Each structure stands twice: as C-alpha cells, then as structure tokens.
C-alpha cells in the first residue's frame, strides 16, 4: 500500500475531478442570463478555480523546496522544487487554458495583455515551464540546482501579486469568488461543487507531487550508483 500511495492518491484525485466535472455540467445551477454574456460558459469555473487553487499550492511547494535547497542544501528540498515545478506547470496550464476558453466566450478575446492577474498567472506558468524544461536540459549538480532554485525563489514574488491582483487592479478578470465580499458570494450548491473541485485538485496534485518526488529520488539513487561504478 505504501509503495502505491502516490498512485492511489492520484487516482482518487482523478475520480474527484471527474465527479466535479460531471456535477458542474449536469447538476450545478445555471447563472442569470443577465449577469454574463455567455452564461453557460460560466460552468468552466468549476474547473478553472480549483485548478488555480491547486497551482498556488504547487507554487508554494516550489518556493519552500527552492528555499530548502538554496539555504539548507536539502535533497528533500530539491525534490520538492522539482515536484512543485511539475505540478505547477500541469495545473497552471489547466488554469490558463480554461481561462482562455472562458475569456473567448465571455469577453470575445482569449487574453488581455493589460490585465494584471492574467499576466502574472501566465508568467507563473511560464516560470514553471522554464524550470521543468531547463532542468531536463542540464546535468544534475549544484550549479543546476542553485540556478533553478534562485529562479524559484524570485518567481514566488508573483504568487502574492497574482493573489491580490483582482483586489487591487480589477480590470477584466472577475473578482474573488470566496472572501471577496457580497459581489463574489456563491449559493450553497455552487459552493459545494466548487469545494469538491478544490479538494479533488488538491488530492490530485498531492499524488502528482508524491510521485514526482519518488521519481527524483530514484534518479538520485541511480546517479550515485553510476558514480560509484565509475570509480571501480
């Protein structure tokens, strides 16, 4: 069971996400046709918001891992950095892609270059892409880890900026759906499906990151064995 823990958690996450999608499409109440240009497209937010939530968790993991490697030279920290970057890329792309679909339906354009939250979130996803692709292009070593951890630490500045962006500079992106005052309130059924989505995505990235950390650990073991064999 312990060996299959990551796979089990990942599977539970998938099932939860599939259930959320099913409920979002079939069970969630429709929004007022006067409130949105494209009311049916609003259902995408049951995917978009939990994916964004999971992305923030992944980026947080990336930051903690980067700090642990950079300041403590912790191998666990480096594994967290790798896992956070990979999970951040996956959930970041899910968020950006679903947001663009909704933007096309609601605003008529998939992207607004002047909207702070869209752009800072896009940048976080690009940062995760840079960290994942860049790491794969380099041999593992202190130089690689130091460089990418530095970017991980600097990139994290974008997380609070992105989080508060719709509160400070709401241009086009809708305001927060939770904790955003009266204008952002949800009815009970909507909130329940959204909560299920948030839990499912959290479980999904937990499984994803556990699996990624195990793979990185195996890579590190393989490398140390190869180095020992080089010396024979």
């Amino acid at each position, binding site marked *: 069971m312990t060996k299959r823990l990551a796979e089990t958690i990942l599977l539970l996450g998938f099932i939860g996400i599939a259930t959320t999608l099913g409920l979002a499409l079939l069970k969630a109440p429709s929004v007022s046709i006067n409130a949105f240009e494209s009311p049916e497209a609003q259902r995408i937010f049951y995917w978009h918001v939990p994916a964004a939530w999971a992305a923030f968790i992944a980026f947080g993991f990336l930051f903690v891992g980067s700090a642990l490697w950079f300041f403590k030279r912790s191998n666990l920290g480096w594994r967290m950095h790798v896992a956070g970057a990979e999970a951040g890329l996956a959930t970041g792309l899910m968020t950006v892609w679903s947001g663009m679909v909704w933007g096309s339906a609601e605003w008529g354009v998939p992207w607004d270059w002047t909207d702070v939250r869209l752009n800072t979130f896009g*940048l976080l996803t690009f*940062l995760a*892409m840079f960290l994942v692709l860049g790491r794969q*292009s*380099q041999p593992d070593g202190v130089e690689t880890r130091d460089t990418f951890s530095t970017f991980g630490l600097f990139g994290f500045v974008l997380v609070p900026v992105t989080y508060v962006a719709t509160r400070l500079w709401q241009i086009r992106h809708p305001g927060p759906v939770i904790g955003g005052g009266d204008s952002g309130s949800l009815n009970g059924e909507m909130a329940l499906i959204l909560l299920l989505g948030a839990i499912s995505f959290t479980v999904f990235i937990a499984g994803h990151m556990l699996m990624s950390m195990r793979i990185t650990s195996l890579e590190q073991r393989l*490398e140390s064995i190869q180095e020992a064999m080089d010396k024979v």
Partner: protein
Amino acid sequence: MSEVLLSLNGVSIRRGSSLVFKDLNVELKTGQLVLLNDRNGTGKSTMLEAAAGLLPLEKGEIFHHGELILDASGRSKRPSTAFGLTLQSDGCVGSQRVEEHILNAVDLAGGRIDIDAWLERYNLAHRRHDLIAHLSGGQRRKVAMLAGILPGFVGDKPRILLLDEPAAGLDETSRTLLVEDLLELKQRGNALLLASHQTDFSNCATHVFNGLEFMQNDANVEMSGTQRDIKATTHRTKPSFRTGVLLNQRTLSTLASNGIAGFLTLGILLALVDASAIDSSVIQASGLFLSAAFAAGLVGDTMVPMLHEHGALDWWKAHRQGIPHSYIHALVLGSTLTALTQLGFDEQVSWPLVAIGGLLTATTMAIVRTIDLATSRLARPRAAFTRILTPVLILPFALLVQWVTDSNLL
C-alpha cells in the same frame, strides 16, 4: 616577513554532485609559486577558479591582499588590486584582436605597459592585429597566457597570478621563455598559483599542493634571473565598455540580431496594418510605434553568447570590472526603429517617443541579458530555455503603452 596575498579560509566547494574541497585552508605569500600538478580530477582548476572568486562557496572565505572578495553567504567584492588570470578555456573571444585581449588584461590591472616586446618574445608580433579566431590553438594559448602573466609586470605592487595550464600546447622554446618570466614574476614579489602537468615548472615552484596544503618543493632550485625595468603608464578607458563597442562595430552583431528582429517586425506591421486607419490618439498607435523597438530588445544582448566562446564570460566576471555590453547600440537601434515606424504610418515624428523607443530597446535588452547571465553557471547555459521567461516583459510594455497614450506624446 612575507605578506599573504591570497588566502582560502575553511573553503568547501561543490561541483556537480561532488564535494571537491572540504575545509581547505591555504595561504599564498608574496614571492611564492605554488604548483598544482596532481592527477586529473583532483580539483586544480576548481582551486584556481575559486581563488578568482568564480565559484560559489559552500563554506569559508577568500581573501585577496587581506580583503574579503567572496564568502559562503554570497558577499562578493571587487579586489582593489587586480590579479592576472589564465583560464583553462583561454577566456578570449575569437572576434577580438590579439593585442586587444592582452591590452585588456593590462588595463584591468590599472596601467598600460608596452606589449611589443612580449609579442616579439613569444613570436606573436606578426599576429598582433589578427583576430584570435584566426590563430592556431597554441598561439591562442600564448595570448591567454600573456593575459595572465602581464598584470604581474604592471606597477610595483605585487599581485596574485592564477594560471591554469598556461603552457598547454606551447612549443619548447615558449615554455622555456615562460619559465624565465615566471622566475622574474616571483622575484618581483608576485604570488603565483600555477596548475600544470608540464615538468618544466618543477624546478621553479617554491611549493607544491598535496591535496590538503602547500608543501615546500624539494626540487626547487633558486635561480637568479634578470629583472627588467618596465615602465607603466596610467590608462583610463574602461576595458569592458571599449570591448563591447569594438566587438559590436566589428561583428555588427546587434544590428544583425536585434536589428533584424526589429526591422522584420516593422516590415510585418507595414504589410498588415492600414496606415490610414491609425488614429494617433488611441492606444493602438503607441503600441504600434513601439513594437519594433520592443521586438529588437527581446532578442537580448548578443555580447552574452559571444562571450560564452572559450570561457571569456568567466574571465570578465572574475575581474569584476564590468562585462562588455551593447547598450549604446541598443539605444541607437531602438530610437531609429521607433522613428522609422512612425514615419511608416504617420508623417510626423514624436521625438520624445523616439527617445522612449531607444530606452525601451536598451531596458528590454538589459533584462533579457540579466536572465541570460543568471543562467551562465549552468553546464549548458544555451540549452536553458531562458526565452520562455521573456513574456515577463509584456505587461510592463502594455503599461508603458498605456502611459504614452495617456500622456499625449503623439
């Protein structure tokens, strides 16, 4: 009592996945020549690069002339007395002329000496104006070696000279001359750290490194050499700025890379956008007029890939007196592109916007260059996908365009 010129205090250095040095404590004093001649993979180059302040430290501190130049927390300072450096990878750019690289090394040391005699001595006088790319491997090594030893002849103050395989690929005559020069450098009070497997240096080294400390060299034979009277004059031009301008003029790299991106953007805009439909009061006009300058800056500084050749970037970084750049060319290019874009769509040119265009190209280039330099420590810096991060510049560009529109600069 001899003055300590270089000290590594409790230094631990990691390279790749292995710890090369752990708690290393060594001191190099004036008039000492320490030979690092251990087998391959024992950290000779690592020690030299660490002494030059090029490698981050896991632990410990490095001092030059009693001044801290690098510690484990990342504190770094430019040494007040410049040192000589020959890197294993030569450290010179192929597009530089022979005399330019050697004069850079001398100027970085804070004075100008006549290099003719040295070029003559090492049979490089006839190659003085040649590009380094046109030299043979051995001749290029001589240039790198001269750039490492000549700072030791500038002025009366003893210096640290860090020489990594300075005689690799050199013929026997050149090696004999080099031994004579090293002896004179030693007599002048310089402190030399020399990594080499050549047996030529066994007799002139005062100490050898045994992996843990500097040991007295039993094979050292005190040889008396003549000490030449070398006059040094002061020289004020900043070598990094001069090199950036010279390399740009010679290779036209900024025009060929940034310029092409800018002109292509301008060409596409002229082909696709109807000039009569442009209203200069709206945001699209400002964005349109600045697009070519922005695209030119996004290419980054062509000096960075050029300096990756033969480890030249490390050579410049070690001296901590600036790294050659293309900012002046970016400023001119961005201004020109903005003026041409305006003329392509409008009959009038807004000069404030032309200036903003120049600054936009230079600033964008500077940010991309910073990202490129931040990844220069990687084993494969050119494979690091740094351009994925350039979208970070789009939001500031959008805000600039908004500001230009609101300010009625058009």
